[in-house]
């Protein structure tokens, strides 16, 4: 039977309480430690600041950090980035690495939206040029980019093609004419993870994936027209071809129902088989399998299929954005000058080389709402960014700033090459709805120069800017802690949402 012991607090039927009883030691201005107690195998480490840590204590995310620390084979710390908030199983903003001998892989440590991530595209347009027609551009994008719950697109994949997408990822899209091979050099893992095996996928996953490629989805996913408002690092901004006043396009989406189904299928199988693994789980959502087991290996191969699907998805959405902007603006590709800056994922598990106890060892890093952050010179980086470091893309919530950072050495020494992924929620959806009641959020945003078109009735209210932490604080923490360095701040001009 699954043992319930350790840091999980007993649950109270009427309300889910806060984390006040988890002991936190402040190490310095940007780091807090959860000492190793009870069944925790390693301590917890939270990157935060005095202001952000207060909100963290109000939900159960610290308990979740402590729960992850009990899993077999975890090395270093069970970590959380400053955008940490209460997830299911792992906290959102959680990072944990496991050794390959006794360590585990957990679908809950990746999330249902496998390879949810973002892509930033630069243009040669200036914000002043497009400001008068932002509404037209957003309307055209809303028309051409399939959005909303269960949205399906014009692409209908045959089974063979769906399997090709699962193996080839963004390269499949490029072969079909969606973008160029150069884009692959500017995509994490060149837009395809190794080891993907579509023969492991369920009929249900294949069915859900066949007509959702090239769709944005709903919830916190968005496509945004932005302006580069502030440059923090001139040299890196030049390396990334960013300049003040420039129009950029930000795409935030993932592997859609295809990824959700793959996660669900494997969680159920692991949940069924967990007793045989003699692993005590403080929360069932942490169901996992040993990395060297057949089930662990199969999950990683299936997860890679979803990761590759997500890269193909963002590649296709970029292409349709390109077509839409060219047509609506009636300009040629040279005048538009659209170029992929980078594409990163923030829900993934990956085998990577890291220094543990002074030795270089291969570990499986789980990033659940955390972004890879490779410093200058890292061998996994394409030549283009070898000197500048990996571009790190941090989407804000709807109507707030997004940031571009550059990977830094501190991430390799402190956080298994990881940094934050976004703002992180601070209000539940119910609270956001209550706060936004009888308010016209789209009008409030328009008043500050942000034009929004969305499909879902509730989405705008539930995703209102006040529902999220202050992203500038989140970014400041990772900058000061040395996990990534600020390069530029982007302000939204227009947003489409599902």
């Amino acid at each position, binding site marked *: 039977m699954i043992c319930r012991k350790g840091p999980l607090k007993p649950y109270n039927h009427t309300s889910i309480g806060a984390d006040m009883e988890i002991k936190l030691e402040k190490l310095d201005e940007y780091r807090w430690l959860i000492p190793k107690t009870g069944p925790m195998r390693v301590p917890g480490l939270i990157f935060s600041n005095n202001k952000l840590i207060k909100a963290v204590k109000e939900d159960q995310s610290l308990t979740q950090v402590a729960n992850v620390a009990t899993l077999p084979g975890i090395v270093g710390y069970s970590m959380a980035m400053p955008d940490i908030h209460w997830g299911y199983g792992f906290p959102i903003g959680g990072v944990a690495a496991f050794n390959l001998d006794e360590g585990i892989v957990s679908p809950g440590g990746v999330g249902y939206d496998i390879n949810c991530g973002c892509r930033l595209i630069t243009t040669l347009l200036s914000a002043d040029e497009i400001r008068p027609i932002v509404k037209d551009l957003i309307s055209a994008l809303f028309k051409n980019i399939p959005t909303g719950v269960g949205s399906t697109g014009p692409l209908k994949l045959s089974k063979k093609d769906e399997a090709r997408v699962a193996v080839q990822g963004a390269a499949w899209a490029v072969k079909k004419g969606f973008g160029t091979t150069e884009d692959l050099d500017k995509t994490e893992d060149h837009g395809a993870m190794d080891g993907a095996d579509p023969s492991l996928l369920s009929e249900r996953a294949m069915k859900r994936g066949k007509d959702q490629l090239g769709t944005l989805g709903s919830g916190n996913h968005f496509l945004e027209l932005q302006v580069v408002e502030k440059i923090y690092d001139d040299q890196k901004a030049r390396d990334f071809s960013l300049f003040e006043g420039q129009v950029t396009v930000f795409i935030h989406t993932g592997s859609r129902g295809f990824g959700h189904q793959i996660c669900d299928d494997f969680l159920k199988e692991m949940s069924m088989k967990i007793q045989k693994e003699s692993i005590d789980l403080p929360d069932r959502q942490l169901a996992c399998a040993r990395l060297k087991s057949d089930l662990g290996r199969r999950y990683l191969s299936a997860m890679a299929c979803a990761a590759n699907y997500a890269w193909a998805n963002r590649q296709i959405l970029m292409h349709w954005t390109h077509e839409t902007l060219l047509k609506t603006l009636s300009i040629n590709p040279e005048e538009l000058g659209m170029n992929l800056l980078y594409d990163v994922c923030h829900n993934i598990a990956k085998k990577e080389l890291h220094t543990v106890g002074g030795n270089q060892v291969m570990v499986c890093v789980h990033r659940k709402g955390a972004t890879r952050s490779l410093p200058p010179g890292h061998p996994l980086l394409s030549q283009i960014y070898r000197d500048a470091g990996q571009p790190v893309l941090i989407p804000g919530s709807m109507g707030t700033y997004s940031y571009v950072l550059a990977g830094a050495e501190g991430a390799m020494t402190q956080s298994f090459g990881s940094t934050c992924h976004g703002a992180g929620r601070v209000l539940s959806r*119910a609270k956001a709805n209550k706060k936004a009641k009888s308010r016209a959020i789209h009008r409030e945003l328009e008043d500050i120069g942000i034009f929004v078109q969305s499909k879902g009735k509730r989405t705008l209210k539930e995703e209102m800017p006040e529902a999220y932490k202050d992203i500038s604080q989140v970014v400041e923490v990772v900058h000061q802690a040395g996990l990534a360095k600020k390069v530029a701040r982007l302000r939204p001009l227009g947003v489409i949402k599902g």
Partner: protein
Amino acid sequence: MHPGKPDFSLLDHTADMGILVRGINLKNLFEEAAKSMMYIMLTYAPGIEETHAVKVSIKGNDLPDLMVRWLGEILYLFEGEKTVVTDTFLSAISPSQLEATLQTIPFDPALHEILREIKAVTYHQIEVAEKDGRWEARIIFDL
């Protein structure tokens, strides 16, 4: 789903959405949980269209696992088959298996307004328990 709110309350979860569902017995609890999930996802304008009955048999490790798999099945029908479950009738339930008939209709954007996407039914803090002769379940969805 049926007009009228099923017997559940929302739990305040920062990122996702949780519900606390009540039932007069175990079968009723599972039926109410299905109704509650559909109530959160979409609105249903009753039409004259005929429902189609689908029989399902779900197996699980124990009651909480059975609950996740049961709701997961109904969610899949919506996401994967574009089929809306309008009502459920449990004919048998044990801690490891349930038998049920689902009343379904095809999803029609003119009849159903989607309120929010549920990505999955999670195992996070899942509970199914008898309390003072009634049954309660806590379920957290990934949105």
